[in-house]
């Protein structure tokens, strides 16, 4: 695990280091690999820390586009957790693309949003999302959902 050398930049670069490490992973993993997608650097750092504390391997990216690039090359993503409201591609749009892809559609997707809008929630669930978490996301929310989904 890369040691955190100091300053805010280290948190972002720890995520980048995790991303680099993810590329070489063999398919053996007892440790599930989770892809976290959020345009906010603060939220990326937090969700990554929550996931790591639950012993998941995490790659955190800032956009749906980057997520799809990674999914194209990384064979063993166990779960995607994505923010809903992102510029260019929303979490809903990312969810749709994942569920429309024969290669990716079996990967469970969890949506996070700061807004508790019931139409939004039902739309995401209808499109195949496993769960919808309201931000700020707590460690207990994440472990509850993930232990159910990754059984």
């Amino acid at each position, binding site marked *: 695990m890369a040691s*955190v050398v100091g300053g805010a930049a280290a*948190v972002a670069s720890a995520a980048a280091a995790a991303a680099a490490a993810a590329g070489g992973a063999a398919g053996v993993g007892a440790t599930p690999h989770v892809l976290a997608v959020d345009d906010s650097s603060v939220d990326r750092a937090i969700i990554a820390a929550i996931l790591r504390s639950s012993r998941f391997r995490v790659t955190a990216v800032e956009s749906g586009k980057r997520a799809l690039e990674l999914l194209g090359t990384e064979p063993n993503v166990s779960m995607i957790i994505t923010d809903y409201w992102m510029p260019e591609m929303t979490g809903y749009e990312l969810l749709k693309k994942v569920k429309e892809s024969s290669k990716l559609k079996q990967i469970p997707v969890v949506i996070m949003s700061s807004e508790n809008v019931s139409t939004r929630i039902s739309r995401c669930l209808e499109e195949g999302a496993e769960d919808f978490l309201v931000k*700020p996301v707590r460690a207990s929310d994440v472990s509850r959902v993930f232990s159910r989904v990754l059984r």
Partner: protein
Amino acid sequence: MDYTNLRRQIISMKKSLFDQGYLDEQFNQLEELQDDSSPNFVEEVVALFFKDSSRLLTNIEQALEKYPQDFYRLDSLVHQFKGSGSSIGALRMKNECSMFKAHCNDRNLEGCRRSLQKMKREHATLKQKLETYFHLLRQVGPPERAVNSWK
């Protein structure tokens, strides 16, 4: 070094930050994610917040002074600000962002301007208070850093 007084100061300062509404429960969530493998986690995430939010404040100010005002963009900017503030438990900041959003929805330019001034003041105050708090924590030193162990 006598840690007892320092600990008392830290606990007292933290209590005051909560009592005065600067911070909420989400800040405790962050402290619980701090451990030996990420001993500076909270300070790093807070630094990320201030980096992001300073940029957002500048963008909001510029967007307000541009004519005609793009209230859609303003709403989007303050939404981001509110989101990351909420993620670190910055309660007062979050509430002030909600006020700004309300003025934005009403297309109330003067209301937005007043709210922005408040946001800037809250931002500066929170920054200064948290800097003091982290400074105290740093004086206590690494072995004492796990704050939740002596709540």
